[in-house]
């Protein structure tokens, strides 16, 4: 049974991605420009364009304070969207893209809305504050909205794999009446280091800059990062499941979509540009927790998935045997 190569099948998710990544973000940025424009008559001629630890430390015109930053933000969002669409073959990478564009747009708008509001009726531009609490709230709302939008991205339907694993691929001997599962718990040193560094760094920054509220939110997010330092990897008759110990993120590859599994060696920086949940230039999704031994799974529709894990040979062997059994 051949799968018809339908451009429509790939076009629909693409359109959905662009819509979700761009439309709400552009709308948010539009609000961030329109409201200050409405308030402009009530603002002083000179406005703050940058804030330091002691209040505004750079000034400029209305355009440089409100229009240009949002224009730059818009450009960033558009570039990000295009990059994400091509580099992020996996829908999870595209979801991250949607959250990112929405959050960035919310950040830009939160800043212009709150400082614009503060600038109304102000006489002395040096007294116009950057209200970090309000901005942080705006960012969090944007983040939550981004998450909701990301959840709306449809998951593409992938073809069933028909190939058998390579003859030289590792295999586990399983008797006719034997069932096998392979379970592993992988510790992510990179998550731990990133999380601890972020939390400690943010605490120091909070003390120095006194922007406690904003940094409290950022610290909470870093704790989320930290919480993902244990990962559960499972191979069973349903396929391969990789999830962080708190449940999300999670990647499930059904056995029916797997063609073959093998052991490879991963170098995080050169292969994936870093650690964590990443995609490489070929669109391969990787859960890169450390350097070294990894399980690489080849799937239908030319996809690959990589997860760094100890005893990858055990996982690959069982996967190949189960795949063969099911074909």
């Amino acid at each position, binding site marked *: 049974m051949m799968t018809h190569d339908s451009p429509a099948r790939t076009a629909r998710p693409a359109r959905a991605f662009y819509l979700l990544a761009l439309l709400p973000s552009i709308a948010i940025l539009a609000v961030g420009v329109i409201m200050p424009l409405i308030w402009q008559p009530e603002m002083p001629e000179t406005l703050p364009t940058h804030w330091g630890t002691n209040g505004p430390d750079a000034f400029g015109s209305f355009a440089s304070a409100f229009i240009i930053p949002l224009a730059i933000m818009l450009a960033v969002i558009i570039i990000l969207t295009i990059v994400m669409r091509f580099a992020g073959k996996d829908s999870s990478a595209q979801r991250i893209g949607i959250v990112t564009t929405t959050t960035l747009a919310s950040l830009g708008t939160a800043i212009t809305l709150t400082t614009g509001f503060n600038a109304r009726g102000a006489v002395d531009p040096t007294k116009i504050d950057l209200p970090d609490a309000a901005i942080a709230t705006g960012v969090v709302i944007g983040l939550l909205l981004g998450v909701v939008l990301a959840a709306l991205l449809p998951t593409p339907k992938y073809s069933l794999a028909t190939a058998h694993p390579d003859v030289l691929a590792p295999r586990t001997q399983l008797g006719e*009446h*034997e*069932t*096998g*599962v392979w*379970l592993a718990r992988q510790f992510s040193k990179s998550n731990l280091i990133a999380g601890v560094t972020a939390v400690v760094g943010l605490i120091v920054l909070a003390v120095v800059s006194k922007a406690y509220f904003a940094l409290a939110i950022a610290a909470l997010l870093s704790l989320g990062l930290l919480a993902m330092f244990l990962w559960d990897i*499972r191979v*069973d*008759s349903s396929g391969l499941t990789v999830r962080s110990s708190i449940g999300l993120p999670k990647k499930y590859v059904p056995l029916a979509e797997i063609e073959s599994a093998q052991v490879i060696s991963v170098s995080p920086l050169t292969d994936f540009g870093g650690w964590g949940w990443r995609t490489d230039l070929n669109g391969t999704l990787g859960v890169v927790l450390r350097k070294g031994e990894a399980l690489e799974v080849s799937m239908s529709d030319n996809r690959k998935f990589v997860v760094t894990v100890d005893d990858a040979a*055990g996982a690959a062997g069982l996967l190949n045997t189960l795949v063969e059994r099911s074909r």
Partner: protein
Amino acid sequence: MLYRVDTSSPEPLFEQLAHQVRVAILSGTLQPGDKLPSARELAAALDVNLHTVLHAYQLLRDEGSLELRRGRGAIVTAHSAEVPERVRRAITALVAEADAANLGPDTILTLVKEALK
């Protein structure tokens, strides 16, 4: 770590699982302090009864290989499991001899059990 159960084997499933954990501990695949998957997770993954896995874990706990703690799960205990190379070689030799003499596992195990008395 690989877990397997053979439903056609005369050996009870819980014993098969317990055996695999014992071997993993002896070979160093499982280290003291390592946490085994939760009984529920393992039972679901292998499609066996939860009580089968619990039985295996309890057996291992009674032998001193596992510690079962509420909320923490099944942890491999820190008891020394170093098998000297000489013993391992002797066992490999025994298996080879038994094979050559066409003796089945049951016969050999009976003899070893008798010798251990």
